[in-house]
């Protein structure tokens, strides 16, 4: 389950979220830990927030998959000279990020075994409005991988999940996930991740909708598996760190609430039976600290007030092995 605990202030809310995740039947959470929060100044770490999230997650017996991002101000250019987004990381600062990942991996050795450096680097805005280049990501990943493994040989570095997108190779908003992954492998990037994180959304299609390069659906992930296979990485493990259907009444990419439950349960069954190398299927997202008041609210499994939505109870029943949806 993908949780949203990073902006949660009170301990009891973190604890209650994690308890409900566990009670639903999930065994792992994906959580975002912003570099800017943890290392607000160069050389100064504040581990307070990740410490309590990870401690409380472990109390519930949950595996934590940590996604690390958001560049602190000190690692970005002076905004008076060059305004930049929060994701801006110049190549000369890759080593600083790698040092942070190494510090994270070392601190949580034995507690956090999976780390995802960056998020959806095939999108223009996620790559800080710089030109999206898989080869540059490989250079970045190489530094991170080596630093993290030097600090903690047990850690698993996951190749950052790519955004499922139909953008062409030189698209205005990013690059096709299929082209991007192929170029990562061609640049030798396969050596610098122990497993691959994948994002796959169903949108309005059911989970058995067949994959195709010009379609965005749940089984699009299989096209990524094909690329891995083509580059000799067939046995590398895969973690689906974001997936979901949305039931917001005013979003064109949403489905009806009944379809959302039906598709979600079918996706779990499908992933369990057909995707042998997939270790986790995590849904976006469990609960948000406040309402977004837009289509994003249609992804939540639990309301802001901790009331389980029906999809929570149906996934819980599936996890308990009870009967399926009517």
């Amino acid at each position: 389950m993908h949780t949203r605990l990073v902006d949660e202030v009170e301990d009891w809310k973190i604890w209650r979220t994690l308890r409900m995740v566990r009670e639903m039947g999930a065994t792992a959470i994906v959580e975002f830990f912003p570099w800017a929060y943890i290392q607000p100044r160069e050389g100064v770490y504040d581990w307070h927030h990740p410490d309590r999230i990870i401690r409380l997650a472990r109390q519930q017996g949950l595996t934590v998959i940590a996604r690390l991002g958001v560049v602190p101000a000190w690692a970005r250019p002076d905004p008076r000279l060059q305004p930049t987004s929060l994701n801006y990381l110049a190549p000369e600062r890759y080593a600083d990020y790698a040092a942070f990942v190494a510090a994270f991996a070392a601190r949580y050795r034995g507690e956090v075994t999976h780390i995802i450096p960056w998020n959806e680097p095939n999108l223009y805005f996620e790559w800080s409005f710089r030109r999206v280049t898989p080869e540059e990501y490989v250079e970045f990943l190489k530094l991170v991988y080596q630093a993290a493994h030097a600090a903690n040989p047990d850690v698993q570095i996951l190749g950052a999940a790519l955004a499922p997108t139909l953008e062409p190779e030189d698209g205005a908003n990013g690059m096709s996930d299929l082209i991007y992954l192929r170029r990562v492998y061609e640049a030798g990037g396969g050596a610098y991740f122990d497993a691959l994180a994948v994002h796959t959304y169903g949108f309005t299609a059911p989970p058995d909708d067949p994959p195709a390069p010009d379609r965005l659906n749940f089984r699009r992930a299989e096209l990524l598996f094909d690329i891995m296979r083509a580059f000799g990485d067939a046995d590398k493990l895969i973690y689906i760190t974001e997936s979901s259907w949305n039931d917001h009444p005013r979003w064109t990419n949403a489905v009806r609430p009944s379809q959302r439950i039906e598709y979600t349960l079918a996706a779990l069954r499908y992933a369990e039976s057909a995707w042998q190398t997939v270790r986790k299927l995590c849904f976006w997202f469990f609960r948000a600290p406040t309402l977004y008041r837009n289509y994003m609210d249609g992804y939540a499994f639990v309301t802001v007030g901790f009331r389980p939505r029906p999809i929570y109870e149906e996934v819980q029943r599936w996890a308990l092995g009870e009967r399926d949806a009517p």
Partner: protein
Amino acid sequence: MRRYPTRNAALFHTLRRLVASLCCAFLFVQGVRYGRYHFRPDLSWERVQTRAALIVGMDTSYYPFAVMQGELISGSDVDIALEIARRLGVRMQVAPMGVDGLYDALHTGVVDMLISALPLDPFRLDTFLYTGAYLDGGYFLVSPNGIYQRMSDLEGKRVAVEYGSLGDEQARLWLRRLRSLCVQHHAEPSAALAAVAAGEADAALVDYLSARLWLREHGEADLRIAEQPIHSEGYHVVLRVQDLALAGKVNAALEAMRADGSLAAILAKWLGEDRR
């Protein structure tokens, strides 16, 4: 006789007066700027009158509130906006846009107000004003002749809901409150209503819009919508918080429409008769 014992003391005194004068001037300018910003006259109504047009932002992809077919935009929100404009003595101009762009368009002054089935957002109350609700789109019980008005009336009964919906969520809560309640799941609200009409369920808990539209198509059914919602979600007209004068006019027009039945007539045109 020299007024100051040294030249430095005289210079210091002059500098002090200069700094004090500059501070006073700065405070005065800031005060004027603050006053001009916060106590500026509300010309929102005059602006609409001068233009002789009320510009209304709408999401034109939400049936039956507003839909665009070719050049034509129609729907209940369109008719409500037209009637408000008529009562204000101006013409109405629709600014069609996606739902995500509505509040930004209002905030930046692209439109005068929004009518687009928008529920009240408490986090926006410092920036926007909401009129009284013109429709409650929440979840209501629907039962034969309206015999079930509250969830507590359903002890030992069967309630039909759309699987996974907010109605389902509410029904599951009531499963824990009543000694006996049977919750029937259906793929769509229409199926839940059909189950009640067929006598397979005692009541349906569905959203108001689905109930009205289904009842319009099934005039023969003796089903009635409960008077009060189980889960309320009012739809409001939204204006900028500084446009109090215009908001007052719009709210008054809406209230008048409610009082003389024209609001109900518009809703009946698009949603069918209000069967309560």
